[in-house]
């Protein structure tokens, strides 16, 4: 990778408050094209909020966020257009409850990209096959297991051909036996070169898939390095405590 390449995501001195609560403190983070960055840290450390500022689901107080070289638009058509280039997968899946699995995946390409129905349907079936839930295409979300729903959610994001994907604790709401199937799909995506920002508690997954691990605590990024460095030699006391606390389980 050449050094001059524009980063996919660039955050500079981002600050964010929820009322009196200072959630993001001087966050600066760069994600290169094709890079997989895993954000870990104790709950309440601001990692989900950070993830959600990247497509402006959370507006920021100050600082700057650029996506693919351009600053995030604040509102309107431009913001919607930008969001359509960034896939997002949520902890609670958020599939459209009143639509079938197939319709969930077809909706945004038709509504946002104005794809013809036939084309959207074919692409959607292709994606559902890729994540292994094509046999469920006619069902509604409530009829699927959590793992299946989350894989559909990933397919729904991919249907927009995003330049990057954000994962906000994608496996935290899943039964243990379903976590693997979702992580497998994500691993596959990473291998194909998707730019990914992943908030997760799955340390083995982070070790295996991440190019970089970012450790956050109390709204700050305390460490930013390769998984090898981070897991073997955490530099800060807080990171060591955190890693020890999850090892006990």
């Amino acid at each position: 990778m050449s050094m001059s390449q524009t980063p996919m995501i660039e955050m500079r001195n981002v600050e964010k408050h929820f009322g009196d609560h200072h959630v993001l403190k001087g966050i600066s983070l760069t994600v290169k094209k094709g890079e997989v960055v895993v954000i870990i840290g104790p709950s309440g450390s601001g990692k989900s909020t950070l993830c959600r500022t990247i497509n402006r689901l959370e507006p920021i107080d100050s600082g700057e966020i650029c996506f693919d070289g351009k600053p995030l638009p604040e509102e309107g058509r431009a913001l919607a257009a930008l969001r359509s280039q960034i896939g997002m997968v949520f902890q609670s899946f958020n599939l459209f409850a009143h639509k079938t699995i197939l319709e969930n995946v077809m909706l945004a390409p038709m509504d946002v990209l104005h794809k013809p129905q036939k084309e959207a349907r074919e692409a959607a079936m292709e994606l559902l096959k890729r994540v292994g839930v094509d046999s469920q295409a006619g069902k509604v979300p409530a009829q699927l297991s959590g793992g299946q729903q989350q894989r559909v959610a990933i397919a729904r994001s991919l249907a927009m051909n995003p330049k990057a994907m954000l994962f906000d604790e994608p496996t935290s709401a899943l039964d243990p036996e379903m976590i693997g199937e979702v992580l497998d799909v994500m691993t596959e995506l990473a291998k194909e070169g998707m730019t990914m920002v992943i908030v997760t508690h799955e340390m083995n997954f982070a070790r295996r898939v991440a190019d970089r691990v970012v450790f956050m605590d109390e709204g700050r990024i305390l460490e930013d390095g390769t998984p090898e460095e981070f897991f073997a030699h955490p530099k800060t006391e807080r990171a060591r405590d955190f890693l020890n606390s999850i090892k006990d389980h």
Partner: protein
Amino acid sequence: MRGAGLTVRDVLYEAPGAGTRKKIAVATAASLLLLALLLGLVIRQFAIAGQLDRKYWFFFARGTTWSFLGKGLLGTVEVAVVSGILAFAAGFFLMVGRISQSRISRALCTGIIEFTRGVPTLLFVYFFFLVAPQLGIRLHAFWKITLPVSISACGVVAEVLRSGVNAVPKGQREAALSLGMREGSVFLKIIFPQAFRVVIPALLSELVIVLKDTTFAYVINFPDLMQNASVLISNYDAMLSVYLLIAVIYCIINYLLNKAAEAVAVRGKEKGGAK
């Protein structure tokens, strides 16, 4: 599935044991006896007052009576259906205005909603019947009843719809926005369809109220069921028998509406919706 047969009673109380079942049986028998006694008393009183005389009932054997009442029923249904549609349309826009970003729109729509909910329907009827003509507004009798009934219902409809919108999980909107959908699209394609499903039973209940409000048609001599019944009463001097009959008719229609509401609610649950 087990959930399908579950009633409110099952949720509120434990399954009755042998002792409780005996108590329930005794109480049921006693209340049935009491009910039969009351009914007997009422009929006896009717007989004493001469209300069971042939002259109060014979005209129900005539086809013309029924076609006259049928016309009235048709008038009632017309007013109720058109009022229902108008109230829904107005309620929808009031709801959208109330949840909009603009403070002025919010204040205005909140004001209209509270006003229409707070004022009795009869006052709106009087306005269209008595005040509007003085202002030079000439309306067909149909609109003199339909407009006040719709206005009276639209605020409630707006609030019912708003409660539905609030019941849709926040994640639905976020997911749609994250895919690049615009606010308007998100509302019409994601939020409102789900909200609507949730509130169909409440909307049908409101339709029952609309139907009952149509009886104010007698104030302006619009030929609805109530008005035609009044004509029959003055023709045959048979107040009790006619009122009894149309009470039963109103009751049947509203019972059917409530049944429809229940059926829709059950179907909605089976289809899943939010988990």
